[in-house]
């Protein structure tokens, strides 16, 4: 009897939360659709093939960073060093091509990913081994990685002429760039959904102590999450180099806040345990779209930041309202 009750309650919870999950994702998609439709009606040139190309190219890098950040945020941590890792990896990619002009592109991509993974391992190692808060450690490595980047660059700049043409054209070919984002997104989404260790990341974020008592190797999982986040920031750095061509030590400065914003807007709870990479990626797409929709709507581009801020507040407010409703529904036992 009790077991049946418990089972039905847990099924309720599952149904109810997956319904809310859908509501949440649909909410962002609806906001995105509304924005695109209104902008296209006001300014038909917004959705030309060039416009779509710009949108997809622009959101690729942010979406990849947001996927990495989601994996970390789900475990109730945060990676503030993502922008610095991107900068370091972008400059490394450029330097690699300067040093070895004939280098095959896949080698450069792998090098960038490995560099990022190494940075992520530094973050994750400190957090997992010494059990220090990720907010502080990654704030520290935000400075350290950026400082290394500055020291390495020492005022130099890498120009498009230093990099192979095929690499640069890859960075401006929409299907290739979008494919990078989609592969990363689907792989991370499938891993978090279907793998035991992926589910354990959610358990860690929901209740770290309970996860530890349940036998989940919390330290190892958190370390892995940071390595993934670092590796994806490294990949984003390579793509950044390919897309923009001109690199100095400032690449990606301040980007970490946009990434966290995309993740929060995408419905990933900042204190872990819930959310999906798909939501975060749509969040990244939405933020990028706002950036290009405002000029198309004839609104001063200076409104962009303010509208992003308002969007974040609206998103976390909505999450809160949904959570309250979920709790009430479950308690009333309907």
């Amino acid at each position, binding site marked *: 009897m009790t077991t049946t009750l418990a089972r039905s309650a847990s099924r309720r919870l599952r149904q109810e939360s997956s319904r809310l999950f859908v509501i949440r994702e649909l909410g962002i998609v609806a906001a995105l659709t509304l924005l695109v439709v209104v902008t296209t009606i006001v300014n038909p040139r917004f959705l030309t093939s060039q416009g779509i190309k710009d949108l997809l190219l622009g959101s690729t890098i942010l979406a990849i960073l947001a996927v990495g950040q989601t994996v970390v945020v789900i475990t109730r941590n945060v990676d503030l060093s993502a922008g610095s890792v991107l900068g370091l990896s972008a400059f490394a990619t450029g330097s690699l091509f300067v040093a070895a002009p004939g280098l095959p592109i896949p080698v450069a991509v792998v090098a960038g990913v490995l560099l990022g993974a190494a940075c992520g391992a530094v973050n994750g190692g400190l957090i997992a081994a010494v*059990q220090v808060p990720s907010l*502080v*450690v990654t704030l520290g490595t935000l400075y350290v990685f950026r400082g290394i980047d500055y020291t390495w660059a020492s005022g130099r700049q890498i120009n498009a002429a230093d990099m192979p043409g095929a690499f640069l054209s890859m960075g401006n070919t929409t299907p290739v760039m979008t494919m990078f984002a989609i592969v990363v997104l689907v792989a991370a989404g499938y891993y978090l959904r279907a793998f035991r260790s992926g589910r354990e990341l959610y358990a860690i974020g929901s209740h770290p102590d309970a996860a530890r008592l349940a036998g989940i190797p919390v330290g190892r999982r958190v370390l892995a999450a940071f390595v993934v986040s670092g590796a994806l920031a490294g990949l984003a750095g390579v793509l950044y180099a390919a897309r923009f061509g001109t690199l100095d030590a400032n690449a990606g400065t301040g980007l970490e806040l946009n990434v966290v914003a995309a993740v929060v807007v995408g419905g990933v709870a900042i204190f872990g345990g819930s959310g999906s990479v798909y939501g975060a990626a749509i969040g990244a797409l939405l933020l990028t779209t706002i950036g290009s929709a405002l000029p198309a709507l004839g609104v001063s581009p200076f409104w962009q930041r303010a509208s992003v801020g308002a969007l974040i507040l609206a998103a976390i407010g909505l999450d809160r309202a949904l959570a309250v409703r979920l709790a009430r529904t479950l308690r009333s036992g309907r």
Partner: protein
Amino acid sequence: MRGVVRGLSSWEAVVVIALVVVVAVGALAIEGVASPRFWRFVSLEVIPIALIALPMTLVIITGEIDLSVASVLGLTCATMGQLWVWGVTSLPLLIAAALLLGALLGAVNGLFVTGFGLPSLAVTIGTLALYRGLAYVILGDRAVADYPPEWASAAIAPIPGLTIPWMIIVVAVLAAGFGVVLHATPIGRGLYAMGNNAEAARFTGISVRRTTFWLFVATGAMSALAGVFWTLRYASARADNGNGLELAVIAAVLLGGVSIFGGRGRLAGVLAAVLLLGTLRNALQLADVPANTLTIITGSLLIVSVVGPNVVVKLRARKDRSWQRGVPWRFSPR
């Protein structure tokens, strides 16, 4: 070993000793550090950071965080600039308007956190973007720089007979005020209680919501005061004034020994850390050490400030474990 461990557990002492060592070594090794002019520059640089670090210390001790402080500073500068353009030429009126605005912006943060029960980390990432965005909406990329030159000279005027600016006295008085509230009143003890366990604090009769709300208001007002000083000192109001300053402030607070989880830290440690970072930055500049080295040092210090005490705790735990074996949750991170 015991003595070292006990000494290190008072992190404030370590920071103060580091400050003394930096000053002593700097005065001996770097020409100019002993000069009064050097301390004038150090003071001018630390004033805005110290002004914001005071309330930030209290906020972090209660277990909350305010990432929007630099944006409040920027929006205050922009508003003062626009009021000046509109013909408000009375300095007291401008200052009053700025402080009122700052308190209002802080109240918005406080309302979202206490009224809607949203996490302050997410809320203030949102208002970080929102407030900075509004500053851009007001000023765009314009700079308002035609303030009377005597305002700037009044803001940075030295204490008669010394080279240190008189604003340091204002900072000292405010620091004393915050110090008394934090360390010598029931309110202050309540803040620690809230940081250790908000639920328990509520049951002891502390009005957690109201206290948190007013802390955010105070943080807003103090950030606005820093904004007033910024505008006057540089005689320039721009939308990007103080961009990224929130990270410098939080780095100083955490380096000063305040736990990011709340419930731990002292104001003296924070003030020593603010001075340490300011002195280090200026001394290294005098020694022609590139700024990026300082970025690396700041980040590393921040990491050491959390890793150091934790490693000590772990070492001690290992020593004591002989009689506590099998109680894995005994040593949770601080």
